């Protein structure tokens, strides 16, 4: 069990003054699986994300990330950019945060910053145009091209990211996160604002990231069709605590989940949950 789980969150708490956003939350995310974190608005999902990705320092609890080679990292001890650089945790944002004035290709090049910094000899080798730098840069462009092809944006590689349609921006942000070559990919509502066709495309992309790239995915999502279709494991939160977890089917039938989503009226809730699948 321990070997198979990439992320284990234990007794995580996050308080903002008197408000307890996350209270004693424990869950695990398995390696090469898609774990979904769901819950009603204000349940504390994004706060959990911000703790895992180092944007918040948790008030208590531990988060252990175990890499393929058995190397374990306590995420709460790392801060800021080191979560991405050393722990290899990448994330996307609820409201898209691309670099709008840079092209799609440039966005993916920025994502490879740390690898390219090493290759450019901390800029000095790059400044004199050393051959090793040139090959590294070419490799980086190849990786970016590969991802542009995967998300179907190859023909818009040289367009400003801010000019792309909303759905394309969502996919580009995922591709940018993947260009950091992460072990754990955290997606904050990737299907928000997408139409049915785009959502289906997104599901396909996430499954292929899991299967072809061996990345583990942690997902916050409100679109139940996406959650139910692709998740291997679902954790349900409400008011900062975990109220249920299990396979999508188990969670869907859990009365506590239904109650959390739609108050006490279970029949109505069941109808909505089933229409989502």
């Amino acid at each position, binding site marked *: 069990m321990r070997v198979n789980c990439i992320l284990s969150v234990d007794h995580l708490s996050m308080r903002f003054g008197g408000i307890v956003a996350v209270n004693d939350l424990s869950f695990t995310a398995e390696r090469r699986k898609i774990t979904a974190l769901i819950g009603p608005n204000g349940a504390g999902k994004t706060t959990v994300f911000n703790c895992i990705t180092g944007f918040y320092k948790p008030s208590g609890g531990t988060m252990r990330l175990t890499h393929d080679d058995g190397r374990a990292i306590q995420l709460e001890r790392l801060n800021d950019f080191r979560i991405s650089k050393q722990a290899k945790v990448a994330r996307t944002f609820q409201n898209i945060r691309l*670099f*709008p004035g840079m092209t799609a*290709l440039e966005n993916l090049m920025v994502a*490879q910053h740390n690898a390219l910094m090493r290759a450019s000899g901390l800029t000095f080798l790059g400044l004199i145009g050393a051959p090793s730098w040139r090959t590294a840069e070419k490799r980086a462009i190849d990786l970016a091209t590969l991802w542009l092809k995967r998300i179907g944006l190859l023909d818009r590689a040289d367009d400003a990211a801010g000019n792309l349609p909303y759905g394309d921006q969502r996919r580009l942000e995922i591709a940018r996160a993947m260009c950091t070559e992460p072990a754990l990919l955290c997606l904050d509502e990737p299907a928000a604002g997408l139409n049915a066709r785009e959502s289906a495309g997104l599901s396909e992309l996430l499954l292929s990231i899991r299967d072809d790239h061996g990345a583990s995915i942690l997902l916050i999502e409100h679109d139940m069709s996406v959650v139910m279709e692709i998740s291997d494991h679902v954790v349900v939160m409400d008011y900062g605590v975990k109220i249920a977890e299990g396979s999508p089917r188990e969670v869907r039938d859990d009365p506590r989940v239904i109650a959390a989503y739609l108050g006490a009226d279970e029949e109505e809730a069941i109808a909505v949950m089933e229409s989502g699948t």
Partner: protein
Amino acid sequence: MTGERVTAPTLEPASASRGSIAAFIFKKALISALVALVLFSLMIGIRTEAGPTGQLIYWTRFPELAGMVAAVFAGSIAVELLRLWWGPVGTVMVVPPKVQSALALARRAIAPLLLIFTFLVPVIFYQQRYILDLGILVLTYVMLGWGLNVVVGLAGLLDLGYVAFYAVGAYSYALLATNFGLSFWICLPLAGILAALWGVMLGFPVLRLRGDYLAIVTLAFGEIIRLVIINWQSLTGGPNGVSGIPRPTLFGIPLTPADDGLAAKLGIEFSPTHRIVFLFYLILALALLTNWVTIRLRRLPIGRAWEALREDEVACRALGINITTTKLTAFATGAMFGGFAGAFFATRQGFISPESFTFQESALVLAIVVLGGMGSQLGVALAALAMIGGFELFRGLDQYRMLVFGVAMVLLMIWRPRGLIGHRAPTVYLEHSQAISSDLVKEGHG
């Protein structure tokens, strides 16, 4: 601009009557005139002066006031008519392909042509010392602009104290040369390194600041450096400055009438213009070095990280980019070029004092960067030419040249709010490089 205009159909008021437009223009002009009347009634309408015994003498100047208000009235009508002629905001100009390709060619050709012309300036204007001196001045500001462009244009960090690094560079060279007799070519890199160190020192405390707060702290830093220079008399000579700074040598060969001078060695007659020409090419080389390094850096991960930082700092952190070192390198790089320019300034002048490093210099360099279009190398060069060269050009206009300057600024605000060259060129491309409109490019937040 030639070509017809296409207006989005919704923007065109459906057969707006001429009468209502005329009434609108008239009303607007009337309001402008009224505001002018209130403003100028005290500024122009009444003239005050201290009399011979200290009492207050005042007299009225109503004709001048009336003239001014009338001018504002007429000007307002003219501006509105101009706007009407231009069409509503958002009008797209349809330029014929022939003109478009000609414009594109002109845009591509302007940089090389400008460069060739700059190289030929000392040849063409060999006899005109004034032009050569002006050229050196313009190139100094081009270099300062390019240096500050790294910090403000690329990394999006508003730095109001850039002159501090210019001062550090100048005093580094002046003190090292006068106290230890080090040559210009040894001092030049040292001045750059020292200025870069000061850049890092400034960078550390301001890392957490953004926007207005960053601007204020950098402004204070610029003033602190100047005050230290004024008050540390034993080292810097205080307000008296440092004099007798050695002139640069051509790799050890002095440009003097002496027997070991360049003129004697080449067997030509000595002329003081030789040194001016040498200085011209020296600053040209330094400026081009700045430009070359900046262009290279933009295509390296560090340069892309600077621009990404300007676009979105939070996203940078999520991608594992170390914000601290990225900001510090931007400060250090910009400061280093400022230091080089400072060393050049010291060797050109032969004398430096704190008066040369006032806030006005910082503001001028920042204005050049903003005017040129943040991040654009060519824009900055053109802006420096316009600001420094243009200012000299209008010297004949006396006190009115500030007025011309103000009018130019207002026109620029209306038509080019993001600087002369507002669009951004991508640093890497797969198929073809297409300029990114300034609407998408962020200005940075501090």
